[in-house]
């Protein structure tokens, strides 16, 4: 049947668009020494003016960090030497801006290049922008603030009326003992956002945070804490990028989402870290009765990723939807997926992912669905499809299920494939060249995620795919 005379080889592409960087002078930045010691943790805590409980929590986390071992089961993180990572780095002039013009020129230009101020004007209710370790820009539209919606950097929130709320939630869902990088996060976290949507408020326009890690050899450890109160709705978008360096960078953020009774949160991510990044991020949502979490996750960047957003369905009728796409190119080992814990009756989860690998990239889908005895009448459906663009690439699927009640409805479907020669021929026979035909097939393959994204992000995702597929004439 199908005959290919030569092995398909797909060239890698130039993604230098994200690599621009405005050089800062050494004396304009403040940073701690490389590595991780009690002194460094105390220095960060002092620098941030932590309340005492937070300082003590950090030290506790450091202890846990030293006790836990590195994960032994996923992609190799041998290239990551914690002694070389700068855990805290920020521009010396520490001031949160509420207007882009108030930012230092180089930082402002970075975000202008990434199109953030424009997106804010056109389609967002509020924006936070983090540059290395600190949020440098924050602004919420008046209409949004009037609804009682709180969207601020987490440090300010710690020093205001929401301190108690933060203390009651901070790393309660992702305890530092969860894994080594959760402990690391607890010790050196900095930046991130706090969002509170009051009861019954429907925030139709999304909020967005953009994370930019600009310094070589640095780590970013932002914490995102979102509480959507009863019956409320919110859409939160995060975007991330970094220029490429030859040294390892580390991202160990933590996202904790609390979705109260009857509330819905949509959490969208387009992750496009540079390919020297170790992305060891932890995201978790706790969903109460009739609440719903909708994860939309696009993973395009990073050298190594461990990313499994988890939904804890703890109230009757709670729902989780996870839609994800992962694209692993040359030198990338992306281990992504999701976890769901059904811990109440009549809960449901729906998982739908696509992964694409090319030029020797490795993409692994890993999922875990646990249905406890309490979760009678629950439903879960897992569908994952993988596409390998060439013969050098690899794709694995590791779905795990632990079902403790017979009164539930569980479905699983996995498919691994290649771009079919039939389809390429069909599209080319109408006049499309091979590169366009292949890009179209891959975009179509990832379309389930594209459809879930706000338009401008769908366009960005398609551009990324197009960029990645350049020069892939097989």
């Amino acid at each position, binding site marked *: *049947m*199908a*005959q*290919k*005379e030569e092995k398909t080889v797909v060239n890698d592409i130039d993604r230098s668009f994200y690599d621009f960087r405005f050089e800062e002078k050494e004396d304009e930045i403040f940073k701690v020494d490389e590595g991780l010691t009690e002194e460094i943790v105390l220095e960060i805590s002092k620098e941030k003016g932590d309340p005492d409980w937070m300082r003590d929590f950090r030290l506790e986390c450091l202890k846990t960090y030293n006790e836990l071992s590195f994960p032994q089961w996923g992609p190799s993180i041998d290239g990551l030497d914690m002694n070389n990572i700068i855990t805290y780095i920020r521009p010396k002039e520490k001031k949160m801006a509420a207007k882009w013009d108030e930012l230092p020129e180089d930082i402002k230009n970075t975000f202008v290049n990434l199109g953030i101020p424009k997106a804010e004007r056109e389609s967002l209710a509020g924006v936070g922008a983090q540059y290395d370790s600190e949020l440098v820009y924050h602004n919420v539209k008046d209409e949004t603030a009037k609804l009682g919606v709180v969207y601020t950097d987490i440090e300010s929130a710690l020093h205001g009326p929401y301190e108690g709320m933060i203390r009651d939630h901070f790393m309660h869902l992702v305890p530092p003992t969860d894994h080594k990088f959760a402990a690391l996060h607890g010790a050196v976290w900095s930046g991130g956002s706090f969002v509170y949507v009051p009861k019954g408020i429907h925030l139709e326009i999304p909020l967005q945070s953009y994370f930019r890690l600009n310094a070589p050899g640095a780590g970013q450890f932002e914490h995102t804490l979102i509480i959507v109160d009863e019956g409320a709705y919110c859409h939160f978008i995060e975007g991330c990028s970094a220029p490429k360096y030859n040294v390892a960078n580390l991202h160990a953020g933590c996202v904790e989402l609390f979705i109260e009774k009857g509330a819905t949160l949509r959490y969208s991510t387009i992750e496009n870290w540079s390919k020297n990044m170790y992305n060891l991020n932890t995201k978790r949502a706790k969903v109460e009765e009739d609440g719903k979490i909708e994860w939309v996750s696009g993973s395009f960047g990073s050298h190594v990723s461990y990313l499994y957003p988890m939904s804890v369905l703890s109230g009757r009728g709670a729902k989780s939807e996870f839609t994800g796409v992962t694209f692993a190119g040359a030198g990338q080992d992306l281990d992504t997926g999701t976890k769901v814990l059904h811990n109440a009756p009549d809960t449901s989860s729906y998982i739908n992912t696509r992964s694409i690998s090319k030029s020797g990239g490795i993409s692994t889908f890993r999922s875990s669905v646990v249905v406890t005895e309490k979760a009678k009448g629950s439903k879960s459906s897992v569908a994952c499809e993988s596409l390998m663009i060439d013969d050098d690439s690899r794709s694995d699927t590791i779905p795990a299920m632990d079902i403790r009640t017979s009164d539930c409805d569980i479905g699983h479907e996995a498919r691994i494939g290649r771009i*079919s*020669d*039939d*389809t390429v*021929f*069909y*599209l*080319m*026979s*109408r*006049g*499309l*060249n*091979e590169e*366009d*035909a292949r890009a*179209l*097939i891959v*975009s*179509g*393959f*990832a*379309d389930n995620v*594209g459809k879930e994204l706000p338009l401008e992000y769908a366009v960005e995702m398609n551009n990324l795919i197009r960029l990645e597929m350049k020069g892939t004439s097989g």
Partner: protein
Amino acid sequence: MSEELLVVKGLFASVDDKEILHGIDLTVKSNETHVIMGPNGAGKSTLGSVLMGDPRYKIDKGTVKLSGEDITGLTPDKIAKKGMFLSFQNPIEVPGITLSNFIRSSIEARTGEHIRVWDFKKRLESLMKVLDMDPSYAERDLNVGFSGGEKKKAEILQLLALSPKIAILDETDSGLDVDAVKTVSDGIREYKDNTDGALIIITHSTKILEALTVDRTHVLVDGRITKEGDGSLVDDINENGFENYLR
């Protein structure tokens, strides 16, 4: 006098080192309608795919010329741009692009010119009417979830929208009910009436040919053309089968 549009000379083609076409000669002039008949596995579909430049087949010998230009070994997109069209026996489902956007991209790729969305929409709507297609299909993903009949109609819709110089219809009538065959052949007549394009119809049955004037019939057996004649050959095969042309 119509010009020689497609000239195939001594064409040998193989897949996985297995020769399937053993020296095909075929000349089609503009405005002509040719029919290729033959038993299953004779290489009819292979011939269509090879002419369209399917890279899975290797041309071992021979030449293919379109409007006097040598197109042997060109990629399918280049052959398409020179005016050839293949209606697939099994049209492929492609999620992520709508039928309408696909046809528009195809026209733009072939002509290198941008077409105005509004003009295109109007034209597509009127063509869909000819084929008795529900206009909502234009906004559905290409062939995804289409019935067998709708897929074939979508192929003919592309034929009409792209108006190629020559179209190869590979078993366009197979698997269709009587009404659908009638609609599809109306579409094919529309193409014949409005262009001076030529047709090569690969078929098992004669239903689709009823509304068309056949200029030339070729019988393909085991990768060779074993008999050629005018339109009456179709009736002969219809009555007596391929028995007389096997060798």
